């Protein structure tokens, strides 16, 4: 083995306790970073999936202007044509059509203004998990009955139960009055309060009749085979629809555009996470800085001897850097291994978040959460540690470089 590496290795173990503490600090930080990032990524996946699966889908085709104004007239006139396009794209798992209109909802006791959504029960159940979330009554059966599926909080607010009637009063697409009476067929609880408080769904055919939609819909909701294929499908779809001549230009939006709030809360969480991580990494950097400054002070005379016998400062600096890189690498390697083990364990068994806070519930975090170990979560933290500890180790090494032989030799 080259003498520099032998020397570095022996020097590392000159003060085993200090070395072990430093390695432990680096290892701990790396473990924590791998696990916490994996956990965050897992939570984001869950958040995205639950929002996507309950309602939003990965992609939506809408008429230009609908997303901003949500006016009835910005409609997709020929949804079946969209369906045919989607059938031709490989990574599309399923899709459905929806039409929506703001309306007054009245029970015998109360009146609320909500967005009434028309859904195709057969297609919808392939896109949305709502069918499995029905707690009372049943899911919508046919696409032309006068029945409704109501969010549990809205049902409570309206004081309605299964079989009760709700009067809908709104404005149709052609500007006329849209009015109808539907029977409550089912009540669902998604766990996302905002959604449970504001959702009422009726069969699409019924909706189109009541609101004079003339076969048109407002959203074509698409679920892709995986989160990864979304951008690909989006691009393919955008190209397919660009040539279609409808009254309103058609647009494809992905989940980030459809739910900017979700993206924002993920970003906020990432930022607050990163602030914590940076603090952690800096603490570790100081620990290695301390270790190496101590080593340099303790060994100044030794460096003086090395210089006296003809070693150039660069050589000594190299020796010190080998020491610090070796130590850091051991810590980081251990940290990555431990972090992976923890992440994978909980990735398999889950972490129980039942009874988590209201805010977390609203973001879809409840029950078992699963970390998700990815290359990114495995390497980001440890590489940051490697970088910052290398910078920290550079300072004492540079101090050696400017050491004068006489000063070093007479240092005590």
């Amino acid at each position, binding site marked *: 083995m080259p*003498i520099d590496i032998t*020397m570095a290795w*022996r*020097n590392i173990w*000159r003060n085993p306790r200090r070395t072990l503490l430093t390695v432990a600090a680096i290892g701990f930080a790396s473990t924590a970073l791998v696990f916490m990032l994996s956990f965050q990524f897992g939570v984001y996946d869950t958040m995205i999936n639950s929002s996507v699966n309950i309602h939003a889908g990965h992609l939506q085709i809408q008429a230009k202007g609908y997303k901003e104004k949500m006016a009835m007239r910005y409609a997709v006139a020929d949804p079946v044509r969209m369906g045919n396009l989607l059938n031709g794209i490989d990574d599309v798992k399923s899709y459905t059509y929806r039409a929506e209109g703001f309306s007054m909802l009245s029970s015998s006791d109360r009146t609320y203004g909500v967005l009434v959504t028309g859904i195709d029960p057969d297609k919808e159940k392939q896109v949305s998990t709502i069918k499995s979330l029905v707690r009372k009554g049943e899911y919508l059966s046919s696409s032309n009955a006068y029945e409704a599926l109501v969010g549990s909080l809205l049902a409570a607010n309206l004081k309605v139960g299964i079989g009760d009637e709700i009067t809908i009063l709104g404005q149709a697409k052609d500007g006329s009055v849209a009015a109808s009476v539907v029977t409550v067929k089912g009540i669902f609880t998604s766990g996302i309060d905002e959604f449970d408080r504001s959702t009422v769904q009726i069969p699409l055919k019924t909706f189109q009749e009541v609101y004079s939609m003339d076969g048109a819909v407002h959203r074509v909701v698409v679920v892709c085979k995986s989160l990864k294929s979304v951008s690909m499908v989006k691009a393919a779809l955008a190209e397919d629809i660009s040539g279609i001549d409808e009254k309103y230009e058609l647009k494809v939006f992905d989940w980030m555009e459809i739910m900017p709030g979700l993206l924002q809360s993920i970003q906020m969480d990432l930022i607050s996470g990163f602030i914590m991580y940076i603090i952690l990494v800096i603490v570790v950097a100081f620990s290695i800085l301390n270790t190496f400054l101590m080593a340099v002070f303790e060994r100044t*005379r*030794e460096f003086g*001897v*090395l*210089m*006296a*016998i*003809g*070693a*150039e*400062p660069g*050589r000594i600096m190299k020796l010190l850097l080998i020491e610090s890189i070796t130590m850091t690498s051991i810590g980081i390697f251990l940290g990555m291994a431990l972090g992976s083990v923890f992440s994978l364990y909980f990735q398999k068994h889950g972490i129980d978040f039942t009874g988590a806070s209201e805010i977390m519930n609203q973001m879809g975090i409840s029950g078992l959460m699963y970390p998700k170990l990815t290359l990114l979560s495995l390497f980001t933290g440890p590489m940051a540690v490697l970088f910052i500890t290398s910078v920290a180790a550079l300072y004492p090494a540079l101090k050696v470089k400017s050491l004068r*032989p*006489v000063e070093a*030799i*007479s240092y005590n």
Partner: protein
Amino acid sequence: MNIVQVKEVKKTYIQGKVEVYALRGVSLDIKKGGFAALAGPSGSGKTTLLNIIGGLDLPDSGDVAVDGSSFSGMSQADLAKMRLNKIGFVFQAYNLIPVLSAVENVEFVMLLQGLDKVERRQRAKDVLDDVGLEGKYDRRPAELSGGQQQRVAVARAIVSNPSIVLADEPTANLDSKTGNGLLEMMKEMNEKKSVTFIFSTHDDMVMDYARRLVQIRDGEIADDIVK
């Protein structure tokens, strides 16, 4: 032939606000094969002079030349190369690299010089044998006595056949018997291998070994006797 030439060397230190004249104009020539002692009380300037001769420190004025090459105008890198190839050092204590064994300590100089491993190892062992440490090759400094450590230091200093070996109070940390033993060995190396030594001391017993005795007082040469 003069292997070391010191001309009018002056060195002043600032201690707080006081100027300390460590060397007040020292001129000295050392012949090849010499065995010279710098003697003088503590604070007289011995270490300062040896450091300057060895290129560890630079004089404020005056000039030093070893083996014909003058130090003035040399860069730190040049000086390092000079020390590596032409000068050997032995200090009062803590001379050795603690993580290296005796033989590795001696080898290290040759490693810096770029000699190949087999030759390095062989020469290091031979020199350790010469200084009386056969069989102790693999001991770490902590496993050697003070006298043995100084012998390793001498071995390291002479292994690459330098022009001169500078030893600053090499016996100061040793008891007199061990110290005398070390000096005997140095003298033997001087006579058998014609290694040139300059060593400093304030011990009369040690001075007796020298063939030339240079007395230093207050940064000046007070006396210079060739025996």
